[in-house]
């Protein structure tokens, strides 16, 4: 319980923590107010047994409950508001913190997987947590606080009864620890079962075509069924061994009640306590286990809190880089790598690479997949920070640029394009905020986006999520129109024309021709004739430059490049 509160408070910022602390203080006041029911009962019965009973006594005892109730309501009102504000506020702030954090995360970190995960945490997990955050503190503390207060009140009536109650509460707490350690003991088994179900389900869902087309239905579903059955057995075993312990725990609260009753009877018979106190104590035994019952019902919640908080922290733990360099306008687009090495996950990806790319030249990177050619291009735009050596743009280390003024120099054309769920014109204005209508039309024309004018709403057409209404080729050309508007000095083409159908390829090539006119062009490609016309071709293998030079020179060498070209010749002229 304390661990969960700690975790949750660690998640909140200072202001929110204060709100929750205040809510706890209010909860204590509420507990005290609620406990006045015992004095009220006592007062009434005392007057009855002492023969001083009157309607005024009834009114007084009513007021002893009513006035605290009023106070308690004010407290509850304030505390509910505090917790609501604190709960929604802290998840909101966490979302903003994540968004802020992402601004400093190296671009290279992002891929479909990581983005999907971050999105799911920022939306789903935080949504789940915000709902719970508003009540978690209340749920966790109320039962305990109320119990403690009732025990204290009982001490006022009779210290011996108070001791019995206290002893009972301690035993109850001890059981909590036992249950928890049992849960811990079972945790690895449960985890294993969960994992089995998860991985088998995933395999089954992703491989469903294969399951069907290879008639694996019986065989594969058997594996899944086994995992499923194993899971059921484990869960069942865990629960069945926990239930008796949990029941004994609740049973103990009843026993405390009975013990209190016995002590109360004995003290009454001996004449040590009067009847009013005795009655109040017996009634008090019921009050105490009503509040004890309210404890320990938040196990499911604590799981969710833990999961959501851990996920958010995971994202915030992604290392960031310092992007607050100098605002700098480049004069040239010369790029230079000086003994650059870069590794990721302890794996060396770029190994001591030095190269120079002159302004307005066209160069290509060629090499097997996984050789590091894409990473080299990413390092130019500081998607990552290099571990050794330096990357220079216009003679200045890319680390010394402010990130926006560095990015101004680069345009990337990928196979996958991302356009915002906004109008076409707003997507284009992303690149140049104050672009005139003429500039927009010009960019669309150069990027072969005539199709835009055939759309019912023209440039004001909203691009649907995932671009449902436009084809992949069209989206790609729109992204090129956007890049044309940006008009950066360096254009990086990363396999941009791979896998495009023939009717699109022609237009795409034309669009790219317009985009790359008078620019420094860096391409990662294997199909373009332009590779042959490049001023320089770098052949990359295992993170190193193994060959470089013009096409004709490379074709004379016996190396990867020549082999690669011959392979391609085979592939292209292949007939089935």
């Amino acid at each position: 319980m304390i661990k969960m509160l700690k975790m949750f408070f660690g998640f909140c910022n200072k202001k929110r923590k204060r709100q929750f602390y205040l809510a706890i203080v209010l909860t204590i006041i509420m507990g005290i107010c609620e406990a006045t029911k015992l004095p009220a009962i006592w007062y009434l019965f005392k007057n009855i047994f002492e023969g001083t009973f009157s309607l005024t006594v009834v009114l007084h005892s009513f007021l002893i409950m009513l006035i605290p109730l009023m106070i308690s309501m004010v407290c509850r009102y304030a505390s509910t508001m505090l917790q609501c504000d604190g709960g929604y506020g802290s998840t909101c702030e966490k979302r903003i913190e994540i968004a802020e954090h992402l601004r400093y995360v190296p671009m290279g970190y992002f891929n479909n997987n990581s983005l999907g995960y971050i999105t799911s945490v920022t939306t789903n997990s935080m949504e789940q947590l915000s709902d719970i955050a508003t009540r978690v503190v209340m749920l966790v503390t109320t039962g305990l606080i109320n119990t403690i207060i009732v025990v204290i009140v009982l001490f006022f009536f009779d210290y011996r009864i108070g001791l019995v109650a206290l002893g009972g509460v301690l035993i109850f707490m001890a059981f909590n620890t036992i249950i928890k350690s049992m849960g811990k003991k079972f945790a690895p088994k449960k985890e294993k079962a969960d994992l089995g179900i998860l991985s088998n389900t995933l395999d089954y869902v992703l491989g469903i075509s294969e399951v069907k087309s290879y008639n694996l239905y019986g065989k594969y579903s058997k594996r899944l069924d086994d995992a499923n059955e194993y899971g059921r057995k484990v869960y069942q075993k865990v629960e069945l061994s926990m239930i008796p312990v949990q029941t004994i725990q609740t049973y103990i609260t009843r026993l405390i009640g009975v013990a209190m009753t016995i002590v109360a009877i004995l003290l009454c018979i001996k004449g040590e306590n009067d009847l009013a106190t005795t009655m109040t104590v017996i009634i008090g035994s019921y009050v105490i286990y009503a509040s004890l019952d309210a404890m320990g019902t938040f196990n499911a919640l604590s799981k969710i809190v833990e999961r959501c908080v851990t996920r958010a922290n995971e994202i915030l733990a992604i290392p960031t880089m310092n992007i607050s360099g100098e605002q700098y306008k480049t004069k040239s687009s010369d790029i230079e790598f000086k003994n650059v090495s870069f590794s990721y996950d302890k794996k060396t990806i770029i190994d001591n690479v030095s190269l120079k790319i002159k302004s307005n030249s066209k160069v290509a990177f060629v090499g097997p997949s996984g050789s590091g050619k894409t990473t080299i291009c990413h390092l130019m735009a500081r998607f990552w920070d290099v571990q050794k050596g330096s990357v220079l743009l216009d003679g200045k280390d890319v680390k010394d640029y402010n990130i926006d003024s560095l990015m101004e120099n680069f345009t990337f054309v990928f196979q996958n394009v991302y356009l915002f769920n906004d109008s076409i014109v707003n997507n284009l204005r992303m690149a140049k905020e104050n672009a005139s209508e003429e500039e927009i039309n010009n960019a669309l024309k150069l990027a072969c986006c005539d199709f835009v004018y055939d759309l019912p709403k023209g440039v004001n057409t909203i691009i649907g999520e995932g671009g449902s209404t436009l084809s992949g080729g069209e989206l790609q050309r729109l992204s090129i129109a956007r890049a044309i508007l940006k008009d950066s000095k360096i254009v990086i083409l990363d396999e941009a024309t791979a896998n495009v159908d023939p009717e699109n390829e022609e237009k795409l090539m034309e669009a790219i021709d317009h985009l790359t006119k008078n620019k420094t062009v860096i391409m990662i490609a294997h199909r373009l004739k332009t590779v042959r016309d490049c001023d320089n071709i770098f052949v990359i293998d295992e993170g190193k430059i193994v060959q470089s030079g013009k096409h004709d020179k490379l074709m004379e060498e016996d190396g990867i490049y020549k082999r690669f070209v011959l392979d391609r010749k085979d592939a292209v002229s292949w007939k089935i």
Partner: protein
Amino acid sequence: MKKRGFLSILLDYAGDKKKYYTVSITAAIISVAAGIIPFYFIADIITKLIDHNEVFNDYVFDIIMILVLFLIKGLFHVLSTSLSHIAAFQTIKGVRKRATDSLALASLGDVKSENSGSLKNTLCERIDSTETTLAHIIPEVSSSVLCFLGTFVYLMILDWRMGLFSLIPVVIGVISYGTMTIGYEKYYKDCIEKTKVLNDTAVEYINGIEVIKAFGKSESSYEKFEKAAKEGASCYVNWMRNCNISFTAAMSVAPYTLLAILPLGGILFFNNLIPLNTFVICVLMSIGLISPLINAMGHADDISKAQVIFKEIDRIVSIKRLSRPTVSKAQPKDSSISIKDVSFGYKDEEVLHDINLDIKANSQVAFVGPSGAGKSTIAKLIASLWDPNKGDIYIGGVNIKDLTLEDYNKYVSYVSQSNYLFNVSIMENIRMGNLSASDEEVIEICKKCGVHDFIMNLENGYDTVVGDSGSHLSGGERQRISIARAMMKNSKIVILDEATAYTDPENESIIQKSLAELVKDKTVIVIAHRLSTIINSDDIILVNNGVIEAHGKHKELLAKSPLYKSMWNAHIQAKDGDIND
């Protein structure tokens, strides 16, 4: 889909463990009763105390009875919760099994159009999250409600005025709770809307972060997100602020039964209308009267959450299935294919109109056409990913609807660019093509299609586990393994749907070679966007706007179809851009 109540869905999935729930409820009732009867003995104790009975032994029987009853209560509680847990886990297992089974029987195209991530999420985490509800709700809700009713009836028997008065705080509570619904619609809508805006903004901000950064827009996009996040929180706070008074009143007054019972009892007693011992016991019983009811109400939320999940499962289970017999009505006599009057549309929009086509056994045909023309859809219908809306497809003279899926799958292999490899060893993955194949036979096939060397170069050779950890296999390498698997299957009809697209260049020519091996002596249907690949086909079928516009050999088509000619020219030009020409 028919609408069903939660309980009927639950019992439906519980299967043969249904009776566990019945027994669980019975046990819960006994447990509740054993919790109420002690009031009788407490009342006895109180009476004796008031009568100044000072012999402790007179109290012993009462105390023992109370202890015994509590023991019974505990035992039956264990029984009730244990049974409901057993039933719950069985239900969860059953639900999962039903859902995965129906995925295997549903038309593949529909399954493929589901988001696999959310499917996994539903089948694992979300189903699991219903456990608490399934396991606790039946015993807890039933015993909470019964406990309230039982105590209330007992109160009424003791003194009906006290009984009725005990309800006053609840009534006040319910009324104030009711006033919370004023303005509910407006606030609820606002919150839903703001949450949606927030989620959309988050999706855009995160998924578009590369673009945002590349265009130097991180400042303004961040501000937009910040605003959405703040509004997404404040709408809920506003809602709470609006209904907090009602909420506070309801939560404070409703459980405070004593507030009505104590003064009423005092007044009744003052007028000699109630004996003192009854008064005391009524006070005692009122203490825990309402909290079980509030407890039960707390589950309403859980139930509705579980309901949403079960509805989702119901939807998965009811994905349209292919109608196939359990025993094939006939066996194909050869590997010819014929398509008769086939029309098909994914949703409302028809994409294929009245297709008629005959493909001879062991011939090689290619589908070509502009993107979106429907060429791939025809192949997917032949591959039985969907059933046509109208018309029929025959293999070797047999309607594929008369074949079991199993028999059908023996005849047809569908190789696309995205073939899945299972999270088991490469050996096992390839063996899936033919489960009875020996290791040697697997290796033989691998040698034949040129993957043997590359597999042997892996650290663990054929025992390398493909999967998350084995994801260092490139797309091309995976494709090569999956082609070996298809070869292992050795079916008479092979459909290649852009099978070489999206592979890395150094793998492409190797893949092509293994494909050539795969299609030997088979009926082959090829969809390829590189037209030069298919010019030798026996028949080239030009699909445009959902109909077959023309077909014939390459030269015939060039002569008679302007569309084909222009596509060919475009291809030649693009090919011209390739490195070699």
